[in-house]
């Protein structure tokens, strides 16, 4: 008779097992207040720029907050676009924090006056995050636009001077800034901010720039080692669990929480499974429906489906599946890969293989609120046969302006 296996207790359900089947309310809820933005970052995940006329009104925003309070949502992550360009921004933040909901908001710094910095520092329910994608103006502004680096530094200076401690510096890792990780840390330390490094996803305008901006495989290894060395000191928003096959998991949940732990409320009230997946495929409903946000969170068909046990598909047999979990759903979707297969940046190369074999058409992001500039803002050329959007700068000068090249004498 073999020794009974019942000598040892069965393994307890892990935390992430519980999370995978959904929660009563989201934990990491992202709420984009507006598609309006003063900048036009080339990788913007929400393709923001112009305000959408169907934007939620102040009263509608307050109704959402009331509901979140009833659902006992602990905090909201507010962003956009640039949330501070809404004239009711502070009214909304005040309403949230006086209704038991913490606010963490992200900004490019444009409206952070010294006065607002003082106000923010004084409200213990508010945390703030400044976006920056280069440790120098040269690298940063190439992505975020002229003057954006200075805007961010000025905001950091004012917040630091006001004694703001709940401050983060948030960076999207790209091919052009991986060499600046130490410098980012120095900037964060200088202003008493916590550094946050996150992953570039092929979402929104990021779909155009992804192939040129995403870190190389070599850079990913460099980034991974750097993150390991800095441990819990540097935050990642669980961005890099797809790198765990390089040598073990980084701090964090190591889990795609879409529709289970996280979701997005967009400026017109649409609820998506994830802020990186603004596409009809991941649209669960709208808060303007009869049952509000709560009904969408609890009962939408999409979220119910996401909360069912996932098979893991092709990745299940990989030794690293346990920590990698097949990577990022949004990254797979927007590169045209199947959701039950490898991440496009799979460190074992399975994603690259899948992309090379793939004949699937790449989905285009649902909305484009980008500024309509004249001449058209240059966009990265997509090397595919799809012709869904303008794919490059004007071929001839007169494509941009009928008067181009004319000598007026």
């Amino acid at each position: 008779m073999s020794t009974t296996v019942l000598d040892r207790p069965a393994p307890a359900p892990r935390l992430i097992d519980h999370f995978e089947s959904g929660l009563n309310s989201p934990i990491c809820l992202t709420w984009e207040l507006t598609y309006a933005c003063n900048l036009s970052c080339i990788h913007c995940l929400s393709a923001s720029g112009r305000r959408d006329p169907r934007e939620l009104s102040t009263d509608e925003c307050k109704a959402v907050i009331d509901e979140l309070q009833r659902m006992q949502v602990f905090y909201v992550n507010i962003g956009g676009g640039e949330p501070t360009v809404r004239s009711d921004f502070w009214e909304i933040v005040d309403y949230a924090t006086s209704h038991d909901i913490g606010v963490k908001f992200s900004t490019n710094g444009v409206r952070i006056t010294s006065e607002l910095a003082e106000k923010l520092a004084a409200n213990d329910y508010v945390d703030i995050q400044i976006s920056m994608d280069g440790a120098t103006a040269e690298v940063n502004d190439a992505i975020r636009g002229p003057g954006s680096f200075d805007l961010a530094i000025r905001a950091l200076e004012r917040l630091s001077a006001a004694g703001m401690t709940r401050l983060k510096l948030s960076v999207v890792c790209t091919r052009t800034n991986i060499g600046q990780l130490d410098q980012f840390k120095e900037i964060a330390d200088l202003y008493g901010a916590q550094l946050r490094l996150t992953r570039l996803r092929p979402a929104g305008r990021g779909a155009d720039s992804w192939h040129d901006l995403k870190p190389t495989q070599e850079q990913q290894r460099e980034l991974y080692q750097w993150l390991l060395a800095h441990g819990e000191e540097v935050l990642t928003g669980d961005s890099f669990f797809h790198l765990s096959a390089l040598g073990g998991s980084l701090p964090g949940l190591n889990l795609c929480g879409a529709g289970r732990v996280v979701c997005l409320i967009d400026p017109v009230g649409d609820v998506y499974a994830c802020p990186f997946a603004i596409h009809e495929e991941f649209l669960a409903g709208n808060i303007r429906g009869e049952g509000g946000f709560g009904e969408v969170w609890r009962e939408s068909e999409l979220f119910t489906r996401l909360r069912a046990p996932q098979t893991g598909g092709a990745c299940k047999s990989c030794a690293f599946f346990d920590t990698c979990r097949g990577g990022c759903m949004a990254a797979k979707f927007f590169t045209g890969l199947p959701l039950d297969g490898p991440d496009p940046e799979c460190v074992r190369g399975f994603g690259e293989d899948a992309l090379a074999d793939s004949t699937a058409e790449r989905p285009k992001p649902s909305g484009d609120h980008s500024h309509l500039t004249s001449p058209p803002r240059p966009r990265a050329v997509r090397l595919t046969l799809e012709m869904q959007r303008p794919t490059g700068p004007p071929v001839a000068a007169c494509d941009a302006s009928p008067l181009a090249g004319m000598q007026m004498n």
Partner: protein
Amino acid sequence: MTDITPESVLRLHDRVSVRPEPFGALLYHFGTRRLSFLKSPSLLAVVDALGEDRTVADALSIADVPDAQRPAMIRAITTLRDSEMLVEVAA
């Protein structure tokens, strides 16, 4: 810090929000911004039963915790005290 015993009296920190979940509960501390996961409905019942005038022993009884589980519960309460989710009340 002192050891937590059955005679200890603790209450929930007033900046902590407790949200029941199917598997137990989530606790969020608005000051520390920490999130704790209670993986047992029994533990949630114990936390709910704690208060100004109740000892740990009282709370364990109210929550019907079997004797065999009491040591683990006390360890859990200690963890929650250490992360400031629970606060000791002076005798």
